[in-house]
């Protein structure tokens, strides 16, 4: 089965916002995320003849978007390497940090999610934002289907522990 340009356009129009959320969760920046989605779909168009048709087209495109997200943030590696995660643990009082509206969630939630290994994060993003089944997640991430369940379980357990720490 070949992937045609209209096929990709259909996915873009139907699931573009979901892919955007995936990219936004990964990059933490709206413009970068938008860029990643655009580049990911552009890459899918350019490489559509390499799609073998053996799996989900959305999963194949999701891999393109994730790779694009990696690429567009490559020049921001310094920021990624820097200790940029917010760590807001109340001690004594109930501290708050002033942030601009655009940084509202990223400033706090990213710290919690950011503690997870990248694969666990991607699995969560694919499951939640794109509603992928285990097979599609496995295909996107290049892992065995049997690994997906354990990966998601570990991610949720770790997330739950982190949240408990934040709240205590």
């Amino acid at each position, binding site marked *: 089965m070949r992937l045609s340009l209209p096929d990709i356009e259909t996915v*873009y129009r139907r699931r573009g916002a979901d892919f*955007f959320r995936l990219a936004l969760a990964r990059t933490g920046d709206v413009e970068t995320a*938008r860029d990643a989605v655009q580049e990911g779909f552009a*890459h899918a168009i350019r490489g559509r003849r390499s799609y073998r048709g053996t799996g989900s087209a959305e999963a194949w495109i999701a891999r393109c978007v994730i790779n694009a997200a990696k690429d567009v943030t490559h020049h921001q590696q310094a920021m*990624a390497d820097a200790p940029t995660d917010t760590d807001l643990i109340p001690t004594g009082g109930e*501290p708050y940090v*002033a942030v601009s*509206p655009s940084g509202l969630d990223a400033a706090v939630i990213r710290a919690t999610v950011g503690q997870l290994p990248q694969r666990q994060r991607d699995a969560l993003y694919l499951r*939640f934002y794109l509603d992928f089944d285990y097979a599609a997640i496995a295909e996107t991430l290049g892992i065995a289907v049997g690994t997906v369940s354990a990966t998601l379980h570990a991610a949720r357990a770790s997330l739950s522990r982190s949240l408990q720490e934040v*709240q205590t």
Partner: protein
Amino acid sequence: MTLDMEILDRLAPTSGWEADWADVLDRAGEQRERRSPRLAPPQRRRGRLLLLVGLLAAGVIVIATPALGVIGAIRDLFEGTPPTPLVQQHFMTWNGMQRRAKHPPHWNQFNVNASKAHGVLAMRTNDGPVYLWVAPTRSGGTCWLLQFVNHKSTPTEPIGPSGCLGTTPTGSSVGWWGILPSPSVWRSGAGTGPNSFGILIGEAFGDASYVIVESSRRPMLRVPIVEHFFAAVVPGGAAIQKITSYDSHGKQLAESAHQNF
């Protein structure tokens, strides 16, 4: 919705997405005539960006968000235009001090334009909200002051510490102050004391987009910069070890070393 789902939902909201298939085709090197007529022109995105820039320039984008906002909603929205008379009056006291000429010569630089005072950031503490107001000086600098709203620890002092920089530094630099709530007044300076929290306020210049705060209590805190200013509420007794400014691409710009609250 489970908690982890709620977190993911907040981590990446759908707002901000705008489909632009023509742009995808352009990036892919496809013929532009394949563009769907339903699409908005590229200028649309630019227009929205300009609108956002306009809103930012027009005044005050201020949100106080709880550190535990994972669970909670936005609790406070601070719109600082126009400032209260109390705030304007306080800024004007800098000019009064200047006229009395009892202060060092460099204080003459602090010719504050109080009519242009506006809010920049808001923070919520256990004691109540804290607002950061700024006003430009006529020499190109900026003065700031903190306002404590309904604070039980400082009932008689709604206006707190303030400071001025006579001119805006041309290079990249970062500086900060530690503000402590004491039983009856707010004060700035060093020392840990019995405070449950302190307020960090600082300025970062150049193309600084955010700062990373390293403290003795928790290693890292990322704080965005609004109009050169950053502010955060930190645990009492925390020793701020280093504050480093970065641009929007993550390039390190400047750092300010060890001080204590």
